[in-house]
C-alpha cells in the first residue's frame, strides 16, 4: 500500500470520527442546557474544552460570550477558522477521501459527498438555524452512514485497516477528553449536586453510552461507575480499552507479528503497552485527570510514530540518491 494513501485513509477515519463525536457533544449539550441545574456558562465551557477551543473562543468572542449557546455552537459548527469545527472536519474528511477516490468505495464516497453537499449548499445551514437538534442528528446519521458504507462495501484490506485505525485512535482521544472535562467539572460542584444523576447521564449520552451503561450497571449511576465504564468496559465500543484493543488489531493486520519482511513497528509496541497499562488500572481509586491526560498524550505520541514509520519515513529515506533497500521487492 502506498504510504501517502495510507496517510489519507488514516486521516479520513480520524476526521469522520471527529465529526460524529462533535455532532453528538453539541446535540447533547444543547439539550442539557435547557433544564440543567448548572449555569449555561459552565455547560458550554465544557463543550469548548472538549474540542480544545476554550481560548480561541474567548479571543474571538470575549470570555463573557461563553454562556451564549448560539455563539458557541456556531463557532464549533461552522467557523472556517476553527480547526476542530464540524464543517472544517467534514471538509478535511472529504478532501482526504477525494485524494484517494480510487480506494474509497463508490457508495462510501457518495455518502461523504452527499453530506458535504448538504452542509455546503445552504440546506444544512437553514436546518441548523431552525432545528439545531435535527441538524446535529442528520450530521451524526450521515457520518454513521459513511462509516457503515466503508465497513460493508469496501475490501477489508490495509486501506480499510488504516481508516479504522484512524477512527479508533480519534475515538480514544474523544472519549478521554469528554470524560476528563466533565468529570473535572462535575467534581467541583457542591456535594449535593455531584450526585445529580442527570449530569452523569448526559456525560454518558455524549459518548453514546447511556443505554449500554444502564444495561451493564442495572441503573447504578455513580461517578465511579460511569468513569469505570467509559474507560474499562470491554464490550462498549467507545470505551478507551475497547478502542485501544481495536486499534491494536488493525495494526496487527497491517503488519502481522510473524512478518519477517516488515520490521516491527514502534507504534505497535507502544499501543499494546498503553492498552495493557490501562486494563490493569483500578479506575475509581486513580487520579483520573492524570490517567486521562496520560492516555491523550500517549495516543498523540503513537500517531506521531505512525506518521514517521508508515506515512512519511520512506520518502525521507529513499528520495535522495541511491541507498541500500533491504525491503525492496522485485
Amino acid at each position: 500500500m502506498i504510504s501517502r494513501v495510507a496517510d489519507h485513509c488514516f486521516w479520513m477515519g480520524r476526521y469522520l470520527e471527529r465529526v460524529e463525536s462533535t455532532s453528538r457533544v453539541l446535540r447533547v449539550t444543547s439539550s442539557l442546557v435547557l433544564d440543567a441545574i448548572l449555569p449555561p456558562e459552565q455547560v458550554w465551557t465544557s463543550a469548548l474544552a472538549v474540542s480544545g477551543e476554550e481560548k480561541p473562543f474567548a479571543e474571538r468572542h470575549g470570555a463573557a460570550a461563553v454562556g451564549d449557546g448560539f455563539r458557541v455552537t456556531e463557532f464549533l459548527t461552522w467557523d472556517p477558522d476553527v480547526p476542530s469545527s464540524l464543517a472544517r472536519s467534514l471538509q478535511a474528511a472529504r478532501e482526504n477521501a477525494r485524494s484517494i477516490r480510487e480506494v474509497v468505495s463508490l457508495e462510501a464516497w457518495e455518502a461523504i459527498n452527499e453530506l458535504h453537499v448538504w452542509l455546503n449548499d445552504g440546506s444544512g445551514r437553514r436546518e441548523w438555524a431552525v432545528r439545531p437538534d435535527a441538524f446535529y442528528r442528520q450530521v451524526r446519521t450521515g457520518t454513521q452512514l459513511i462509516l457503515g458504507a466503508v465497513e460493508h462495501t469496501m475490501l477489508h484490506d490495509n486501506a480499510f485497516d488504516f481508516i479504522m485505525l484512524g477512527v479508533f485512535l480519534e475515538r480514544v482521544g474523544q472519549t478521554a477528553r469528554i470524560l476528563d472535562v466533565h468529570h473535572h467539572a462535575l467534581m467541583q460542584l457542591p456535594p449535593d449536586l455531584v450526585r445529580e444523576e442527570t449530569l452523569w447521564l448526559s456525560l454518558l449520552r455524549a459518548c453514546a453510552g447511556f443505554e449500554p451503561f444502564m444495561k451493564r450497571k442495572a441503573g447504578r449511576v455513580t461517578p465511579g461507575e460511569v468513569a469505570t465504564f467509559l474507560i474499562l468496559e470491554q464490550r462498549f465500543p467507545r470505551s478507551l480499552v475497547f478502542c485501544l484493543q481495536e486499534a491494536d488489531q488493525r495494526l496487527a493486520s497491517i503488519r502481522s507479528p510473524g512478518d519477517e519482511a516488515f520490521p516491527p513497528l514502534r507504534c505497535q509496541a507502544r499501543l499494546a503497552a498503553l492498552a495493557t497499562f490501562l486494563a490493569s488500572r483500578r479506575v475509581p481509586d486513580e487520579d483520573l485527570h492524570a490517567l486521562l491526560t496520560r492516555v491523550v498524550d500517549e495516543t498523540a505520541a503513537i500517531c506521531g510514530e505512525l506518521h514517521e514509520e508508515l506515512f512519511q519515513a520512506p520518502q525521507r529515506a529513499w528520495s535522495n540518491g541511491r541507498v541500500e533497500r533491504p525491503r525492496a521487492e522485485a
Partner: protein
Amino acid sequence: MHRAVAEIASPPSMLSMYHPLPGAFDELLGAGERLRATVEAMLADGSSEEFARTQALAEAALLNQGVTFSVYSDSRGVEKIFPVCLLPRIISAVEWSRLERGLQQRVLALEAFVTDVYADQRILETGAIPREVVLGSAQYLPALRGIRPPAGVRIHVSGIDLIRDGAGVFRVLEDNLRTPSGVSYVLENRLLSKRLLARAFAAARVRPVNQYPARLAAALRSVSPVSPEETTLVVLTPGPYNSAYFEHSFLARQMGVELVEAADLFVDDDRLFVHTIRGPKRVHVVYRRTDDAFLDPEVFRPDSMLGVRGLLRAWARGNVALANAPGNGVADDKGVYPFVPEMIRFYLGEEPLLEQVPTYRCARAEDRAYVLEHLAELVVKVVDEAGGYGMLMGPTSTAEERAEFRRRILAEPRRYIAQPRVELSTCPTWVPQGQCIAPRRVDFRPYVLNSATGPWVLPGGLTRVALREGSYVVNSSQGGGSKDTWVLKGEG
C-alpha cells in the same frame, strides 16, 4: 379516427417547435429514418416539464457523486459539474463503421510518424513534410531521438476531435496524442442515459461503452517490460487540484490500480519504484496524466520540484513503459496537422479515409498573404495552444483584435495556422432558460487505444456541445457541456 383523437389530446411534441439553424447540418433532421424515429419516440410522450425534471435529476446525480472538474480561479479550488444535456447524439452503424476505419488508419499513420521522427526520419528525407515544420516544432524533443519505447508503442491513448461540416461530412479538427481527457464523462453520461432514459435507450439498441477501462488496462499491460500478470500498473496524477482529477481517480478505480502522485515515485538503478508502507515496490507501466514538462526534472525542467528524477532514463532503458510516450506532441502540433494525409500515404500506402479542415500555414509566404487578407473570415490558431485559448475567431472579431493578430503573425509566422470557420453541426439540446429544445453546435471526440496488437476504437465518445446560443466554442472552460453519444448496433 383513434389516431386523430390522440393527437388532439396530447400536448404538442417538444420537437414540433424545433427549427434547425440555416447552413448547419442537423444531427437529428439530417439523420436517417430509424434514428429520427428513436428521438421522436423519446420526446413524444413527455412534456417539457417532465423533461426538465429528468434533466434536474441528472445534474443532482453528478453533484452528489462528485463528478466534477476543478476551476482554478479560486485558491480553494471550486468544483463544478460539467453540464450535461440528456438528449443524446446518435450515430448510425453505417456511419460509425466508416469513422472507425478512418480513425484506425489515422492513428496507425501517426504512430508510424512519431516512431520515424525519433528514429531515422525517413519522411523528412523524401520531403513529404518540410523538415523545419517537424524539427522546428516546440513539441519535438531531440533528446528522445534513438529511444525505442517498450513494445514500440507511443500513442497508447488518443482522442481525435471531429466536427461535421454543413454537408454532414465528418472532418478531423485536431489530434490529441498526449494526455487526452474526457473519457470518464463518456462513461458517466452513459450511466445517466441508462438510468433516466431507460426505455428510449433500450429501443434504440446502443453499443455499450463500459468495457473501456478493462480494454485500457489490457492495452497498458500489453506494453509492459514484464509479463502482464507480473505487471504493476499505476495512474500518475498531478493531484486532487488538477482540473481532470476526477477522471484520473475514476480510471484508477475502474481499472483497479493505484493512483499515484510524483512524490510517491522514485527511480533507483534506472528502475521505477513506488513508496509503500512496506518499503519500495517496483512499477512497470505508468499511465501518466501529467504533461511532458512535469515528468522528469532531469530532462525537462532542472529547476522544477515536480516530476520523478530519472524517470526518462528508466523509460529509455526499457524498464518502465510510459503511456503516452513523451514527445508525442510533435505529431499533434497544429503546424504538423496539415501533413497527416501525407503521412497516411507515406507510411501506409493508402488514401486517407477521413477528411480534414483546409489549413493555411502562415510559415508559407503564399498562405500567409492569403490569411492576412482574409482575417475576418478565418479562424487563426496558435500551433501549440489547446483548450480553445489563443484563437482569433475572424467572423466575430473586432478590428483591433485582427490588427493584433496581424502583428503577431508577422512576428512569428511559424506559430500560426488559419482555417475557414466550419459550420459545426447542431444537435437538439435542452435549454433550461427557455424550458425548450433548440439547436446547439457540437463536436465529437472518439477515443482510440493502441497496443502491441493494433488500434481499437471505443464505440462511442464525447460529444461536446456549445450551450450558449450561437456559440461555436465547446470547451468546458468556456461554457461547453456534454452529451452521451449513442452508436447504434447494426441492423439484424
